């Protein structure tokens, strides 16, 4: 097992290097240093100020030198401080990761339970009118852009019904929960249509397998066949789809956090985009990729543990 982990980590190194290359191409090659300086200092800055800015960051050095330095900095997590606030990226990430997770983790878990439940139910009533209607509803849910859920969620539910706070965040123990309900609900809705359809396909595939026929031939009730036999097999397939996104949850949701005023990493990134704060965007791209790659390794591991055919071979 340890051997397997080490090998996977080793294979990830070229991929991480590739990500570093892409960020380099974007921020150092495709973008002219003068333009970057203008973005940071303002268009009206003097030519001399811009030159100084460029020189301070080593952007006038030959490309290979820049690339090596870029690799080194990324590998050691040394990011340029934010252009807007001047804060160190590591500090920013540490501070804002918590609120992000408070939304995305419950959103992920609730979303998973809801989508699996709906998918199993659809398989239970498969080929009926109910099944087809639910599929249509899922496709309809998928066809609405995320912002519309957010905007309507806030306007209709919060403002009109006045049940939950529409905006804001306050870390005060259990009281925090009421700020989370709407964002989590919106997050679940945004992904529900797409996920339910996907899981339905997986469970439908399992239902066609021989072992289901054997279980029915033993006299097992169809609810138990679905809830135990099909679910357990389906969950293993589900792992490959969902676990990879787990580590990246810490990056938060751009749209939801900004809209509901949650001070998480997603909001940080959102503001960075609006204000062309490139160091933040670069750091987010790099870290987001690392987290996703970690998620892929985690997926392989969990899959190997969960499927007895792999675990015991």
């Amino acid at each position, binding site marked *: 097992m340890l051997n397997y982990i080490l090998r996977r980590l080793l294979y990830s190194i070229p991929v991480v290097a590739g990500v570093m290359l892409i960020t380099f191409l974007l921020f150092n090659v495709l973008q002219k240093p003068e333009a970057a300086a203008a973005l940071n200092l303002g268009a009206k800055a003097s030519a001399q100020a811009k030159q100084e800015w460029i020189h301070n960051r080593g952007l006038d050095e030959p490309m290979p030198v820049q690339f090596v330095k870029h690799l080194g900095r990324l590998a050691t997590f040394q990011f340029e401080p934010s252009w807007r606030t001047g804060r160190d990226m590591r500090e920013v990430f540490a501070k804002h990761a918590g609120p992000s997770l408070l939304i995305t983790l419950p959103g992920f878990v609730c979303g998973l339970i809801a989508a699996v439940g709906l998918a199993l139910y659809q398989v239970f009533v498969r*080929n009926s009118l109910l099944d087809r209607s639910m599929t249509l509803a899922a496709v309809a849910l998928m066809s609405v852009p995320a912002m519309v859920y957010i905007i309507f969620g806030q306007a209709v539910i919060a403002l009109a019904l006045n049940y939950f706070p529409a905006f804001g965040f306050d870390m005060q123990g259990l009281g925090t929960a009421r700020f989370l309900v709407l964002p989590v609900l919106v997050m679940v809705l945004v992904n529900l249509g797409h996920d339910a359809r996907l899981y339905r396909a997986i469970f439908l595939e399992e239902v066609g*397998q*021989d*072992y289901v*026929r*054997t*279980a*029915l*031939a*033993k*006299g*097992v*009730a169809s609810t138990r066949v679905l809830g135990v*036999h099909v679910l*357990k*097999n389906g969950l*293993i397939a589900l792992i490959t789809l969902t676990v990879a996104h787990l580590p990246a949850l810490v990056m938060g949701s751009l749209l939801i956090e900004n809209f509901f005023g949650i001070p998480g990493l997603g909001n940080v990134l959102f503001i960075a985009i609006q204000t062309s704060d490139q160091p933040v965007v670069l750091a987010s791209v790099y870290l987001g990729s690392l987290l996703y790659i970690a998620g892929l390794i985690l997926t392989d591991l969990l899959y190997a543990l969960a*499927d*007895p*055919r792999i675990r*015991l*071979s």
Partner: protein
Amino acid sequence: MPAAPLLSVRNLAIDFAAETGTVEAVRGISFDLAAGETLAIVGESGSGKSVTGLALTRLLPEPPALYKTGEILLDGTDVLKMKARELRNIRGNRIAYVFQEPSTSLNPVFTIRSQIAEAIRLHRPEVTDVDAEIVKVLDMVGIVNPQQRMRDYPHQLSGGMQQRAMIAMALSCHPDLLIADEPTTALDVTIQAQIIDQLRALKKQLGMSIILITHNFGIISGIAERVAVMFRGKIVEEGETGRVLSQPEHPYTKALIECIPQLGRKRERLATIDHAALEAAL
């Protein structure tokens, strides 16, 4: 006076709704099965024999299957009129199945033990020591070291052992009838003989009825007292095994038997079956 048959199929007809229209899989078949008797249903693929086997406990998915006419009488009660709960009661309990592909018919993520235990807990709730029962039944089918083996997952067993495990699972609730649908087709020839021997021994030991569904005439003698030959959804010939094999009456049966290559017989080419002509003669 002969006892009433355990199973009595009368005029069973089953259709399947396919994309290109309706397929008549079973076209009015009838047969009886006495307690303790073994009946072999022989036919090529598409003859309707597997559909018949699954129909006996209404295991066919409906749709696309449609039970057009007929009755399936188990001790006098019509299976086709049973409610879902009654059906679940007889499945695994009074009528049990063994299927063709043991590697895919067993659930890959549960141990042998838990899969057999599921059946026992379902139909024999009075059993207190389930593990002991599992060991007993695994031993009965000839699996060595059953205490170890039962904690294995299906993929850890060889094909022959998987099939034995399936048979054990089927027998765990002492069924009156065992339906074996092509039990040896997916196995090596040497293992085939072992499995048939095992079935024969179990039959003697337990006195249960068996319906053996196969396309292979070669395995039925020695275990099946009677044989029914199916072609295109109909039973074209039925009778005592020895008689049918040595003096087949229907041209299809004759053609089928002719197809079995025989060692030592000189022949220019292997025999084939003219399906179209036989269909016309049906």
